[in-house]
């Protein structure tokens, strides 16, 4: 890279001036002339046959324009897509509105289109649906046992897919083990809860055959392709716009029924339509995350060497597959080695259909599960062998010189120095001092716990997923940057501008970053899997590099010197040895827009585009340390200290990286302590609003102490790895480990999440503490 003025600097966000004034443009802020409003009637049953639907009264309600049911749409809109290449995959037909049967609470049954939002909502209550309730399948393990009711009658049982992989001498490892350590683990279902719910606006202009869909989505370009398929339209007729998106965390990395439904309605009715999801709909009918129950076992030597690992897991995928549903559990399998040398690993995933909303990618998507499995297991091994958690981890880390490090799950970790991050975190936390304090306070009947998590994660999705970028220097000198990534809070309007500013030697104010509109950005994939900077940012970097080299050629023509005789420094091309003879890229751009000054045959512009598909993933890592105090009398957990040392390779903007981490840690901590989507045995959702689904609040969280190490990746020229999900991945096991450590005197070795006061209080009452002063 040339001299870096902006990359690495703490630059205030360019997104913010509009947002802090309330001038953002989210989907629900859109108002189009003649716009109609849509409300959706959703199933109150977890599992039921639809006997009849009577829409007559709703249709007659003043202000209602149309009512549609699934049966009418069967031949009009294709089924909701899923992507996976697993040959065992069973894909039930997933219609945008249910036809004969409902399979989860919240499944769409009918939709009303009306002149006003309230009117549409009123008319929903006038639709009469007769159901025949069927037994619901809720527990994913029971769903796979013989005799369970079957949700999709096309198949004999509820198995949605099966995936297994064995590498290394697993059987042998268990034969040679001094000890086998086992643990059953539950990864509870979570609701992503972006504060902006989903929303869709669709408009069709029949004259030009233009369908425009505004959606609160992470993937406008993928959505465009899928909508064209579902509606049987040429892709060129579909434009998808992701305006300001109010958070997503994976929940908007999808193709949802409402997106296709509203597009169809706009075409059918010839008027724009809008649907804004209510929060209770969001919890019922937007994807959930996690939802795995597994049992892990490790073959270990007395000295703490891990010989092999087996993990059998049942994934609760819900009633249908959403876009990436089948891809998530295998991710858990791939990352099971964590940041340790484990020569033999066997994984078996069985995915079960249940009468619930689909699970899919939620911040971390498979990696929090893997990290939780391996980190909880490390703690359990430490307990069983009487080896300190830190020592055990150190012993099993690969050394920095071993990178790229090949795991028994078939991955090659790009770069790493796990020891360094661990050392830094221990030092920052004052680990040894904390241990002494813990001992002293236990004698006084206070229960402090120290938890540790050393994690590695996989991000920057590709390979297989490229990203697109374009850089265009206009005649005025203003630079437009187009990205196929679709950020929704991450701040790439700022960080991408920083990359381009350095490459072209210009000021940030002269750069505008544009994304989220398939009508303007030629192609793209989207923002997910911590890929926007490590893949999309690299595409931008490459495009800017091309622009700079084009400018060099033009400068060589204008100065009548050889291109090699030019030096580029501080935004200027100068003739070697003649520093006064120099032009900025923006001056060159002005010349480039006039054919007179150009060499014959060259194009009148100064722009270039690029796609980047990485050859490998990147693997950020770090160490999180959490100190808690548990109050046995109330079951309350107070987080007293939280230290996170993360390594995401090179950092473009430390402010944004800190923000991603802080938010990520809060979400991981939410899983550990508060959050769970609960269904009862009939499939009723018991956490259907934010009054019941507990999110972390400002007062629940401690001030985090963040620090970094920097181990650049060789996978891309920027050396950046990705930081969107690391906080969530690293934090959950650290918190659980801390609480379990605090309760060690009670003989507790593991507690399933969320670690609610009720659960802890009960445990403390059931078990008496060991005499003060003893650690176990």
């Amino acid at each position, binding site marked *: 890279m040339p001299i870096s003025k902006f990359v690495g600097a703490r630059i*205030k*966000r360019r*997104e*913010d*001036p509009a*947002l*802090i*004034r*309330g*001038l*953002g*443009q*989210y989907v*629900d*802020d859109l*108002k189009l002339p003649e716009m109609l409003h849509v409300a959706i009637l959703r199933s109150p049953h977890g599992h039921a046959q639809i006997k009849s639907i009577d829409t007559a009264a709703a249709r007659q*309600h*003043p202000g209602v324009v149309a009512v549609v049911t699934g049966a009418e749409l069967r031949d009009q809109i294709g089924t909701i897509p899923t992507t996976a290449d697993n040959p065992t995959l069973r894909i039930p037909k997933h219609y945008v509105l249910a036809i004969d049967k409902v399979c989860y609470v919240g499944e769409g049954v009918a939709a009303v289109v009306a002149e006003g*939002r*309230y009117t549409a909502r*009123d008319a929903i209550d*006038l639709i009469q649906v007769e159901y025949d309730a069927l037994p619901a399948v809720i527990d994913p393990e029971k769903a796979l046992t013989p005799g369970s009711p079957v949700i999709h009658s096309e198949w004999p049982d509820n198995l949605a897919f099966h995936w297994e992989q064995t590498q290394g001498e697993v059987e042998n490892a268990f034969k040679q083990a001094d000890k086998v350590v086992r643990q059953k683990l539950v990864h509870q279902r979570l609701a992503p*809860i*972006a*504060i*902006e*719910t989903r929303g869709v606006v669709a408009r069709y202009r029949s004259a030009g055959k233009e369908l425009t869909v505004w959606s609160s989505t992470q993937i406008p370009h993928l959505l465009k392709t899928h909508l064209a398929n579902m509606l049987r339209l040429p892709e060129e007729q579909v434009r998808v716009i992701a305006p*300001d*998106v*109010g*958070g*997503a*965390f994976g929940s908007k990395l999808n193709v949802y029924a409402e997106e296709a439904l509203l597009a169809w309605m706009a075409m059918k009715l010839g008027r724009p339509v809008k649907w*804004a999801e*209510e*929060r*209770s709909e969001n919890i019922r009918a937007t994807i959930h995350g996690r939802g795995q129950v597994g049992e892990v076992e490790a073959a270990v030597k007395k000295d703490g060497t891990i010989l092999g690992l087996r993990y059998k897991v049942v994934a609760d995928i819900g009633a249908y597959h959403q876009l990436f549903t089948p891809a998530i559990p295998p991710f858990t399998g791939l990352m099971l080695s964590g940041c340790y040398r484990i020569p033999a690993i066997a994984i078996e995933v069985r995915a079960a259909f249940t009468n619930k909303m689909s699970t899919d990618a939620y911040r971390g998507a498979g990696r929090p599960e893997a990290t939780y499995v391996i980190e909880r297991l490390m703690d359990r091994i430490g307990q069983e062998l009487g080896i300190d958690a830190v020592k055990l981890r150190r012993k099993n880390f690969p050394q920095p010189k071993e990178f790229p490090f090949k795991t028994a799950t078939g991955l090659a970790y790009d770069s790493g120095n796990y020891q360094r991050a661990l050392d830094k975190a221990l030092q920052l936390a004052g680990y040894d001092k904390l241990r002494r304090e813990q001992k002293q306070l236990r004698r006084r009947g206070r229960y402090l716990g120290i938890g540790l998590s050393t994690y590695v994660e996989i991000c920057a999705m590709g390979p297989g997923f490229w990203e697109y970028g374009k850089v265009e220097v206009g005649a005025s000198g203003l630079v437009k940057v187009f990205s196929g990534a679709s950020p929704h*809070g991450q*701040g790439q309007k700022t960080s991408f501008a920083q990359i381009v500013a350095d490459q072209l030697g210009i000021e940030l104010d002269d750069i505008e970053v544009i994304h989220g509109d398939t009508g303007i950005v030629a192609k793209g994939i989207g923002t997910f899997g911590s890929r926007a900077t490590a893949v999309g940012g690299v595409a931008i970097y490459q495009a800017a590099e091309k622009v700079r080299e084009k400018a060099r050629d033009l400068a060589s023509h204008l100065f009548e010197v050889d291109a090699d005789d030019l030096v580029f420094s501080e935004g200027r091309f100068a003739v070697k040895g003649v520093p006064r003879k120099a032009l900025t890229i923006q001056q060159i751009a002005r010349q480039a827009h006039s054919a007179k000054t150009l060499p014959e045959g060259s194009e009148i512009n100064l722009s270039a585009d690029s796609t980047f598909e990485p050859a490998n993933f990147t693997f950020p890592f770090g160490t999180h340390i959490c100190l808690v105090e548990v109050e046995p009398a109330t079951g309350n957990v107070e987080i007293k200290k939280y230290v996170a040392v993360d390594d995401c390779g090179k950092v473009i903007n430390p*402010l*944004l990286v*800190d*923000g991603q981490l*802080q*938010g*990520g*840690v*809060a*979400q991981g901590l939410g899983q550990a302590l508060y959050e769970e989507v609960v269904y009862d045995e009939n499939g009723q959702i018991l956490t259907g*609003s*934010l*009054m019941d689904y507990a*999110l972390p*609040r*400002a*007062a629940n*969280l401690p*001030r*985090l102490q963040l620090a970094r190490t920097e181990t650049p990746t060789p996978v891309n020229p920027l050396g950046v790895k990705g930081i969107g999900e690391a*906080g969530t991945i690293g934090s959950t096991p650290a918190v659980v480990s801390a609480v379990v450590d605090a309760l060690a005197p009670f003989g507790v070795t593991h507690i399933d999440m969320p670690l609610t006061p009720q659960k802890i209080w009960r445990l403390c009452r059931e078990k008496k503490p060991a005499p003060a002063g003893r650690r176990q």
Partner: protein
Amino acid sequence: MTAAPRKKIALKINGVEQVHQVEPRLLLVDFLRDAVGLTGTHVGCDTSICGACTVMVNGAAVKSCTMLAVQANGAALLTIEGLARGEKLHPLQEAFWECHGLQCGFCTPGMILAAYQLLQRNAKPTEKEIRHSLDGNLCRCTGYQHIVDAVLYAAKAMAKKPRAAGRKSAARKAGT
């Protein structure tokens, strides 16, 4: 289910007197967003938990998703759009920008107004007091730390210039 007759309401929004005819059941937030066109006030949960819809009504922070527009008859309202004075941002807005107190920005208007109320009542809050007073506002992106930093930063800035133009102007608009 015939619509009830519309009611006339007269109120002051961001310093401007307005008169509207509204359905009695119309929520204040929908009134602000749909009838007045001030879409900076957001709906996040419908149940007054998340605080994205927070506005100032007669000087008090109110969750506008659980108040009817007719209840605001005669009131003075301040929404996020009324906080800056022209180009001049309110110190809280400056602080949220400076401290990276927002990511997706959706909770931000409500968060800023909740903090605005706090600083009116307590000009020098501690970190603990800030965290406690923002308990009714949910943010899923930031983990709150930068938000807390922003409120501390704004409090400091406002203490230096107690008669900051933005603040005075906003207070005037809110009728306080």
